[in-house]
């Protein structure tokens, strides 16, 4: 075991992590700052974001308008002081990225172009064609190369946070290329590890999104906030989870059940017209569309394929010309990654998990309740997203709160002393755990893939679009039994060099912890709000639940859920109205 030391260590090299690491390098150039990531930073999932990033820049828009859209979209569970800071700092952060070279799409006169986006009442979404996240990530990554002070530990997988004397003092990681267990001590650690979509079977999320940081913080004693809020997107490809943009429906695409019937007309979403009508049928709100799918499935009117139930998105009547001019990316995705031509075939779609509103609980400076531990991006819950995130707020959130967490962590680290020797003893223990429980483990009967599939099934059934107390209770038991069975894992790979079976096993253990936090938080919240819909408690209950859930890891290993009041500044809770 080698020991490395730095002042601020950022875990995760996506949008939030890279913004944080630059913030440290710029505000505290004397500090030793490093980013550790299980993949090369440019592989991070920020790369997949397509739509755009919201920030007020045009005349006629206002910070209050952006704040109100965000708060009402979040069904009043957002902390309003956080939202106000967010919308205020968003334009500057976006401009900074422009100065760093991000190829934002432009108006003919050379100014930044913005476009409309679901839930935003005024056009304020900056975009870089349909590859916004990709361009933001690569711009950030290439900009970090400018700073010689920034150290990188690429393809190092963090297995544990080191906590001593009540504060976070570093991490233990395994270097994938060699399998060596390494210690990096730090005076402050920032978790920017993204969400945990892979806890669910159908998701737009990449393979690396296993809630690593959430589980690390949870195990270290920090609470996970609002974990029951899981955002679905109504039209993803069933097997790959590739997102088929709303634009496909806006251009006139139809959602059909197995009888070729436009089933949305049965769910109070308007009458079928040949031409698309705003706010009706296929252009209804995302969550209502996802909910209609579940009802349709219950009636046995969905189709069933090798990957479960689905319906059809039919674009054929639009013709090749419209599809090629208006929806070229949709056709490209279908042809290239699904082997389907939307000009000739119907596209199988279903609701897919897209985003976690919840995450490691932080204040508006990105600080968690555990001193020395910070979090930003999807891994964190500040919360600006409340019970439902608005499209194009998440990329901006990575920048604003990445920068805030970076600055706060740097200021904290500058005032701390070097970590003591006792953290090294902890690191030795962790090294032994990895050796004994995984790398040299023989025997065992359970396959990673089997446990993962059972977890998927449990989460889909219990913590999906609709939840009820009974299924959530069953799910909590099931997850507990999966945790026990995890101890009986059979591992085929005992090597040190790039052992991806070991990382898959560790990721599964992270996901199981996060899944438990989701299920227990959902079970306790006996109301329906935003993305959390309980059929046994269909109404929003502000008297009881205008509060954030906080899931702590109890002494028995099970989650313990507490509540924290929502910060309301200027916008008292109102009714959530969809559309314009």
């Amino acid at each position, binding site marked *: 075991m080698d020991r490395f030391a730095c002042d601020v260590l950022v875990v995760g090299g996506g949008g939030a992590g890279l913004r944080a690491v630059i913030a440290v390098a710029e505000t505290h150039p004397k500090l030793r700052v490093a980013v550790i990531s299980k993949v090369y930073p440019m592989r991070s999932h920020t790369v997949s974001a397509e739509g755009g990033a919201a920030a007020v820049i045009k005349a006629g828009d206002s910070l209050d308008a952006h704040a109100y859209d965000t708060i009402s979209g979040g069904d009043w569970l957002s902390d309003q002081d956080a939202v106000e800071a967010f919308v205020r700092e968003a334009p500057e952060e976006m401009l900074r990225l*422009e100065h760093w070279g991000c*190829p934002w799409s*432009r108006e003919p006169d050379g100014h930044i172009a913005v476009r409309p986006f679901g839930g935003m009442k005024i056009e304020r979404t900056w975009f870089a064609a349909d590859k916004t996240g990709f361009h933001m990530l690569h711009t950030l990554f290439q900009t970090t190369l*400018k700073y010689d002070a920034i150290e990188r530990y690429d393809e190092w997988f963090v297995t544990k946070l080191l906590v001593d004397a009540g504060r976070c003092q570093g991490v233990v990681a395994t270097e994938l290329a060699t399998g060596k267990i390494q210690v990096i001590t730090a005076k402050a650690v920032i978790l920017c590890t993204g969400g945990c979509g892979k806890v669910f079977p159908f998701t737009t999320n*990449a*393979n690396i999104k296993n809630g690593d940081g959430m589980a690390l913080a949870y195990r270290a004693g920090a609470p996970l906030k609002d974990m029951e809020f899981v955002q679905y997107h109504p039209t993803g490809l069933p097997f790959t989870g590739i997102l088929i943009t709303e634009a496909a429906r806006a251009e006139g695409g139809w959602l059909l059940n197995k009888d070729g019937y436009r089933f949305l007309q049965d769910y109070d979403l308007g009458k079928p017209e040949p031409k698309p009508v705003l706010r009706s049928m296929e252009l209804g709100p995302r969550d209502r569309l996802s909910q209609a799918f579940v009802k349709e499935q219950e009636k046995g009117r969905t189709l069933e394929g090798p990957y479960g139930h689905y319906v059809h998105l039919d674009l054929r009547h639009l013709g090749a010309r419209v599809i090629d001019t208006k929806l070229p990316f949709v056709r490209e995705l279908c042809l290239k*990654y699904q*082997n389907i031509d939307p000009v000739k075939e119907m596209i199988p779609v279903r609701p897919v998990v897209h985003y976690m509103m919840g995450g490691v609980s932080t204040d508006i400076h990105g600080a968690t309740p555990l001193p020395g531990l910070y979090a930003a991006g999807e891994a964190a819950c500040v919360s600006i997203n409340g019970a439902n995130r608005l499209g194009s707020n998440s990329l901006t959130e990575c920048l604003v709160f990445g920068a805030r967490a970076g600055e706060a962590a740097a200021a904290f680290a500058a005032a701390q002393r070097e970590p003591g020797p006792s953290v090294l003893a902890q690191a030795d223990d962790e090294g032994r755990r990895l050796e004994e429980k995984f790398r040299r483990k023989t025997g065992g009967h359970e396959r990673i893939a089997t446990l993962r599939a059972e977890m998927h099934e449990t989460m889909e059934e219990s913590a999906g679009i609709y939840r009820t107390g009974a299924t959530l209770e069953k799910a909590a038991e099931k997850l507990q039994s999966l945790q026990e069975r995890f101890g009986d894992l059979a591992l085929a790979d005992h090597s040190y060099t*790039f052992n991806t079976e070991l990382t898959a096993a560790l990721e599964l253990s992270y996901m199981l912890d996060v899944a438990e936090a989701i299920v227990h938080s959902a079970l306790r919240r006996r109301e329906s709000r935003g993305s959390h819909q309980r059929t046994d408690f269909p109404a929003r209950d502000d008297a009881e639940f205008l509060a954030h859930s906080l899931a702590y890891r109890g002494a028995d290993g099970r989650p313990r859920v507490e509540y924290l009041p929502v910060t309301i500044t200027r916008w008292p809770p109102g009714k959530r109205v969809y559309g314009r």
Partner: protein
Amino acid sequence: MQPAVTLRVTRYRPEQESEPTLATYEVPYRKDWVVLDALNYIKDTLDGSLSFRWSCRMGVCGSCGMKVNGSPKLTCASFLSDSLPGPIRVEPLDYFPVVRDLVVDMSDFMRKLKKVKPWIIRHDERPLAEGEYLQTPDQLDAYKQFSMCINCMLCYSACPIYGLEPSFIGPAAIALAQRYNMDSRDEGAPERLEILSEHDGIWQCTFVGECTKVCPKHVDPAGAIQQYKLTGAIHWLKSLLLPRGAR
């Protein structure tokens, strides 16, 4: 429709063997499966010790580049149906050291990328309060293509020059240098030209052109390098013919 496909996959277990070997796996055939899905099937159900990188499965993270039937490809964009009836040969990318199985070491590229200074260089930074640098859609168009690089390493694996002369900076890194040179906001072209005119830079390229053919994002690194050569040659001529002040 055929029920199964055979994959012949390169295995290399450095802890047990000194050279790669070949393993054969039978996987179910599905129309919507790509080679990567087949590899995941192997890992999940047949052999948990097979190692490879992947993440987004939609051609944008750049992790899953391998050689499929001899050509460098993103395995997430290579359907089994394109290689029927099989067997399908899956190998690690050429010209990189193999770490294990299908995983190659790309730290060499990471060093080279930093070397070409892929960031905006300016004499004077404009304060944020003064707003954005104006850039017309045409000016954006001038470098857009080169900004699409996902660093998947397919172009290096297709470049025999890189194979024969590993010090060559290589297609993707040069294309990214050109991406910043062509950006109307950037003023760092002279600095980068100095680096790229060195021995390991643009003049190593003899224009095989394969890098452009295998690029999954149509970046055209071969084009970037040739354009750069033209710039370099003109710069050299000027420095030869013109007095210092007029260059």
